[in-house]
């Protein structure tokens, strides 16, 4: 069981990710944008994985990754970006910011679990 921080501005997406992860026995905390995620990340200890959308209001996913990598406790934590197939540039931008990998939207619960299996 891992503690996972799921960040997405879309409530349905967040619900789906969270539900899937919880169903697989993980502990999930949710944030609806980068700002919220960052403060949650600071408040929560022992987050094993961060899954974040890229396009979000207030603070986007790329900035979030940059911020998280600045924090000692998130230096090596796997961070997965949720991207779309048109996000090629975003992928490299995300990687440059320190993202571990990406989950390509659309995805179904099985794909999600398979992908996070790569880092957990």
């Amino acid at each position, binding site marked *: 069981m891992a503690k996972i921080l799921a960040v997405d501005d879309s409530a*349905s*997406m967040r619900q789906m990710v969270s539900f899937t992860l919880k169903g697989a026995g993980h502990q999930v905390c949710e944030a609806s944008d980068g700002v919220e995620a960052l403060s949650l990340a600071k408040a929560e200890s022992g987050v094993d994985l961060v899954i974040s959308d890229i396009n979000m209001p207030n603070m986007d996913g790329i900035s979030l990754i940059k911020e998280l990598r600045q924090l000692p406790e998130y*230096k090596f934590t796997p*961070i997965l970006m949720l991207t779309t197939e048109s996000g090629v540039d975003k992928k490299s931008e995300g990687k440059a910011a320190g*993202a571990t990998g990406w989950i390509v939207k659309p*995805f179904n619960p099985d794909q999600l679990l398979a992908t996070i299996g790569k880092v957990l």
Partner: protein
Amino acid sequence: MTIDLAQFHQVFYEESFEGLDVMESALMELDPDNIDSETINAIFRAAHSIKGGSATFGFTSVSEFTHDLETILDQVRAGTRKFSGDDVNLCLKSVDCMREMLQLLQGGDDGHTPLSMELKHQFARMLSSDSDVTDSQECAPEQAPEQDPQGPTLWEIRFTPGSDILKTGNDVLRMLRDMGDLGELLSVSCTPNLPAFNAFDAESCYLSWRILLESDCEKSAIQEIFEWVIDESELGINETEGLSHWKILFKPGATILHTGNEPLRLFTSLAELGELTATAFVDKLPRLSLFDCENCFMSWELSLVSSSATKESIEAVFEWVVDDAELVIAQESNSKPKPVADRVTKDVLQEQKAPQAQTPPTNVAAASPPEIPQTKPQVAAESTASVPTAKPAESAPKAKPAPAKKSAETGSIRVGIDKVDNLINMVGELVITQSMLGQLGTDFDVNRLPKLLEGLSQLEQNTRELQESVMRIRMLPISFAFSRFPRMVRDLGQALGKDLQLEMLGEHTELDKTVMEKIGDPLVHLVRNAVDHGIEMPADRLAKGKPANGKITLNAYHQGGNVVIEISDDGKGLDREKIIEKAIEKNLVTPLECETFTDEQAYDLIFQPGFSTAQAVSDLSGRGVGMDVVKRNIQALNGIVEIRSTKDKGSTITIRLPLTLAILDGQLVRVGNNTYIFPLVSIIESLHCRREFINKVAGGCNVFKLRDDYVPIIELYKTFTVQPDAIDMDHSLIVVVDYEGGKVGVVVDELLAQQQVVIKSLEQNYRRVDGISGATILGDGTVALILDITGIVKLAGDKFVQTSARARMSQEGLQGLAQLAS
């Protein structure tokens, strides 16, 4: 793991519709010549979310549609595409289209519409016209369908990750583990590429790997494992067919070191031929006292997997020492070296996790395992069937779009958390009061009566506050109803060639959700009319010395217990003469009646049923189309509608509505033994009835002389056939209420309290009753009926309507009428 994605559909729909609203209003704000990045970002984000969600939940029609739109928006956002006013229109159309598609999906349809097809083609044209824009579709991973039908393939994988791999949270161990899932991981080696110790950076990765994987997987499956790091790393994946496995037993003579030969060097040379693993045996080590550090007591068993090594080339390595050593070189044809993935990868993990403590791992296991090695375990038993053949993710079952349930419109409401908190606080208070009263009740004596009364008054306050809090939950800002107008006014303006400006005030004014839902259509009607008939063409406006752009103002505010909504325009105003002309033509009024009409009375004519038909009104400055319906709808909400207008200055329509349909501010009245309730909002005044002020009108109903006015009266006891206190009406009261802009007097026996009543639907609990809009239960448990003014007027019959119409006539006319009657 199977998850029913349908459970997220409702949230997806709600949020998508919200997203569309955001897109719409942001598009309206967008100035194509000076694109504001925050606005375009908001539009893009909304489109992006809808696309992601629809794709995830299997609504391909919407996701495909939105994909193109998103691409266009992304280009605008990135500044690579110019956006024109037409493009904004196209996007707005797309928003409509998506809304329609989503609604269809909600109803179980596939969501394709003729409009969506047409728009898709337009998008395609837009996107293909600029060929420099590369298709954003990611190229499909390189296919390597060279799967050997004969059996598993041996893959040789050379992997040199970028030194920053750890900083992105990637971990080579996991990749190795994943590869282990694909098949048999034959060999893992770590080659030293370490810098000098003082240049060592603990956060960098200096290791690289050569991996042999026996698997029937495809090349893409291996590539996928490295997908996230492939850009920064060197990766070579080769199929190595003629790979040979060599097993070498090497027992050097004790004096090997004396010749300057060193097993480690030999092994390094050997490793150049292929993958080498070494196991050292220390069984010949003497006791410490006999130990001679210049002699060699160790022996090795070496495994070499190579595509190029031959027995000769291996022997060549040992050429100098072969005379002084025992050397057995054997090719293993069938058996494979024991998979060492687990053990080795674990070591690698430790080295990775604690890179500071890392000793350069060589490809030669110089350190010897303490245990006596057993003979090479046979791996023949490990049939390929037992090899886990984890399929790559793409073969995972595709999410089948769950059949959408037939438009299961679950009326939900989003409530601010503060409202809920408040409610919980109230309930807490109530519980405290209840326990206090309960305590009083168990052990009551008369002395504690004041305490009881105090408790009851507290209970009353709690109840009222609780009620208010609950009501507040159903309250939504009127912006929900207003939000459609910017778009509507814009589209109408474009269609009619009018320059329009819409101002909305008091959007935060809150209104009950049910009232909001019902007021939407009448508002649309009124705004449409204001644009259509009120505002003149720009040229006409300029000719009148007005600015070319017409202004529509929507204003909402609270007044008393009501919500007032005003729709104003600065157009040409209502044309009294034409309205009257039309009304006479339609036989709604007689020319004689009209002569003395006030402006208000004249304007009121447009609310008459049958005042206009669409064609008749097209050349009319009035607002005839369906205004009777508007009025009826507003009255059904216990509301009132009024018109003010000034020629060439514009018109204002004022709607006055109760805040909620669940609770009513009512005036209780008594007729005989029955209690009725008037909506307080409709009461103008109440006064003592005096016999001498009542005139009978022949063929009509009675009128009451109210100061300088005559109002038709309705005797409620007749309407509902109940026994009143007195028939002569001398002791009765008259409640003067508003009816269709005029006045009607209702005769009752007594005025009781004014109070808020909770409205219970008669239709749901009993059946529809004319003249009654609902019921409530009073404090003493009796049922009181809530009067529907329009209904009781109708019950009073046609003669009343005629009288009522006549009663609107001028004072002289009425007086004449009264004299005639008496």
